């Protein structure tokens, strides 16, 4: 039961943070960072095989690899931005958190631009008299 391990780990981290925060707030946020990183590392190892399965299946289905790669990159960026923003919010720096989220959204839009382009070109080629 991995979930019990993860929840127990999280609770231990929370108690340690509460103890340390009174004496040393900077170290408390360091513990929060380390605990968040470890929990995600714990989850990512099984996730890797799932992602590889998705990539293999989409390859067999003949889907262009570019779309799947873009999708995975978007998921990765979303997770990283969320991670950073939550950390900044824990340290009560709401403005930095908002900027991190904004940057994540911008980068996702940048990644999605080629797909939009392909979509629009497809629609234009379907239109009669189009390019």
């Amino acid at each position, binding site marked *: 039961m991995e979930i019990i*391990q993860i929840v127990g*780990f999280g609770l*231990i*981290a929370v108690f*340690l*943070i509460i*103890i*340390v925060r009174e*004496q*040393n707030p*900077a*170290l*408390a946020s*360091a*513990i929060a*960072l*380390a*605990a968040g*990183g*470890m929990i*995600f*590392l*714990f989850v*990512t*190892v099984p*996730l*890797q095989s799932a*992602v590889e399965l998705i990539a293999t299946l989409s390859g067999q289905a003949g889907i262009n690899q570019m779309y799947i*790669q873009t999708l*995975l*990159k978007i*998921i*990765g960026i979303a*997770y*990283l931005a969320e991670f950073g923003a939550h950390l900044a919010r824990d340290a009560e720096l709401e403005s930095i958190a908002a900027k991190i989220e904004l940057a994540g959204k911008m980068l996702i839009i940048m990644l999605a631009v080629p797909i939009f382009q392909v979509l629009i070109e497809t629609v234009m080629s379907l239109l009669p008299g189009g390019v």
Partner: protein
Amino acid sequence: MAYDVNTIFQIAGIGIIVAMIHTVLKQMGKEDWAHWVTLIGFVVVLYMVASIIDELFQKIKSVFLFQG
């Protein structure tokens, strides 16, 4: 888990011990030493956290972004 719970306990232990040393040195009237101890403890913890975060980022890179 690549890093087990021990690392979290280590960081928390460093935090508590550093706070204790800080208080003792302050009581002895050596304020500047107390600040150095806090700073060095923080740097050590930051190094441990940075190695974990580095591993996390490498993992995310290899899982989601297909690089390396």
